[in-house]
């Protein structure tokens, strides 16, 4: 399968600082998360792929198109939802998105149709006829998303899409992104500081640090593995319960809030835990598979490499 994004020794310098340092990677997932601390180069990477920065050395390819030589075509295939506020205050929502569609090459009538379709899709109704300057933050974010998808791109760059949104709006945005990922015929690149957003929306994650790739992992695989780490919340348990668990062969450790963390060895089933609980009159109120969550992966990637100061 052709990779969505290929980085080939990409080096980008801003002023005297080398912001991206010989990045090499091949990203193939349907939905790719971009993580990293502030200053790691996430925005610079996206800006470079869009052609706003020229690479100092190396190159990158988006859907097989080289960003150095075919930048214009690359931009024809991509949609961009920037992190900061980006709109024209005196235009109505529909007019703005229509302008953006026409700039991407759509003829007038189709542009208007697609603009309305995009607004319908993101869930903005009558609001689209009001001036964008009067919109709330959630509406502005949705408008940004609308202009990013109106021309039907193959690759969608989303930079902090849930920035500043209150919980219902966040949920709606995440649902929309998941819907686009599942049913839309395109690839998503999601850059965010909120690990949960990335966990919910992405299946591959690229972690940058100091302009280099700190980790690249496949969340799907991570989820399938690691079913043996459990966290139990009980009522009525005491030392004897834990001791009995240990006798079964499980490694136990006290968890936060009075919970019990344990590792199930091969051959021991969860049913046996219930048997133990029934014997000891213990209520099992929660069983929770604690797999290597994105948080653990991220923090592990942030640790300084061995042997370096």
């Amino acid at each position: 399968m052709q990779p969505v994004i290929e980085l080939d020794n990409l080096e980008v310098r801003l002023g005297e600082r080398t912001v991206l340092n010989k990045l090499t990677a091949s990203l193939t997932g349907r939905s790719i998360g971009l993580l990293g601390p502030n200053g790691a180069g996430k925005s610079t990477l996206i800006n470079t792929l869009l052609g706003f920065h020229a690479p100092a050395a190396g190159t990158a390819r988006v859907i097989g198109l080289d960003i150095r030589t075919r930048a214009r075509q690359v931009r024809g295939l991509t949609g961009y939802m920037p992190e900061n506020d980006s709109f024209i205050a005196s235009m109505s929502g529909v007019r703005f998105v229509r302008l953006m569609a026409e700039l991407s090459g759509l003829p007038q009538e189709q542009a208007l149709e697609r603009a309305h379709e995009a607004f319908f899709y993101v869930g903005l109704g009558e609001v689209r006829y009001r001036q964008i300057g009067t919109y709330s933050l959630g509406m502005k974010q949705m408008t940004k998303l609308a202009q990013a998808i109106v021309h039907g791109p193959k690759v969608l760059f989303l930079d902090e899409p849930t920035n500043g949104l209150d919980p219902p709006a966040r949920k709606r945005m995440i649902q929309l992104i998941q819907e686009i990922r599942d049913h839309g015929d395109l690839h998503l690149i999601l850059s965010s500081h909120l690990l949960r957003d990335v966990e919910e929306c992405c299946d591959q994650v690229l972690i940058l640090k100091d302009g280099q790739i700190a980790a690249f992992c496949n969340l799907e695989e991570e989820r399938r593995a690691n079913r043996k780490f459990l966290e139990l919340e009980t009522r009525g348990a005491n030392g004897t319960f834990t001791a009995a668990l240990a006798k079964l062969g499980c490694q136990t450790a006290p968890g936060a809030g009075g919970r019990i963390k344990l590792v199930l060895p091969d051959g021991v089933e969860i049913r046996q835990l219930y048997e133990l609980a029934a014997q000891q009159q213990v209520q099992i109120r929660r069983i929770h598979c604690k797999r290597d969550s994105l948080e653990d992966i991220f923090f592990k990637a942030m640790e300084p490499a061995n042997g370096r100061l």
Partner: protein
Amino acid sequence: MNAGAIELDDVSKFYGDVLGVNRVHLSIPTGVTSLVGPNGSGKTTLMNLITGLIRPTRGQVRVLGLSPAKHPDILRKIGYCTQFDAFPKGLTGYQFVYWFLRLHGFPRAEANALTRQALERTGMREAADRHVASYSKGMRQRVKLAQAIAHNPSVLVLDEPLNGLDPMARAETIALFREWAGEGRFVLVSSHILHEVDRISDQVILLSHGYVVAEGQIQGVRSEVKDHPIQVLVRCDQPGLLASRLFEQDHVVEARIHEDGKGLLIRTRDADRLYLLLNRVVLELGLEVESVAPADEDVNSVYQYLIGAEGGTA
């Protein structure tokens, strides 16, 4: 009059005709208190009332026994970090915090020491001498936090303090909040990220349309919301079979099979009896259970029940 709390006594604030908050009655103890609610529900108004930036139209606000609007000396004990990304032009990070301290009346040497300390604590030591205009968003956020904590206040009012911070900085800042809470300070945090609110707060205040809809510890709040039965999610291999046994009980109100066929969402009026029953049934039927979790004991669910989906995009 409790000198050890932040109290709002039947407080209302109107901006002309526009409602800020209406008849708010709160007593906030020490520890981490989270302020949750949609945009426009009155969070910023509440914070501005507590820091004395605005006066209530009606009612009284008391911080540590004194009204901040009438007794400016109490402001020494309050630290405020706004949600707005605005700074005086031309200052470096160090200068921003330092001059703020001098405004408070600290002598030069002490202000210098406190500034360095605050910048160290928020991880801004290296970038302190660069201009704020050249900072990234996360760095600006941390400088704001440094300014809020520099004078060692007992009351910290932080409006969306984690906005723009990367995961590591978030974890460090959260650890900082818990540290301060442990020292007996009042830490008031407003946030939209509900799962973080769950993790960091001791108590929660939910606001909607200018009214306090709920406040207290989250489990306490949940158990008081009696209109909504408790939800428990069980992932197992034969949810249908489990459901049939559960329906024999009168306290089970609803059992819904998850779309992937491997989970059962149970709603019941009596959580204790449900768990005992669950334990028995699992053994009886020989079910393979993957996980068991209360589905709505978190801020997210309480938010849904009490505030709902309003306040999103129109």
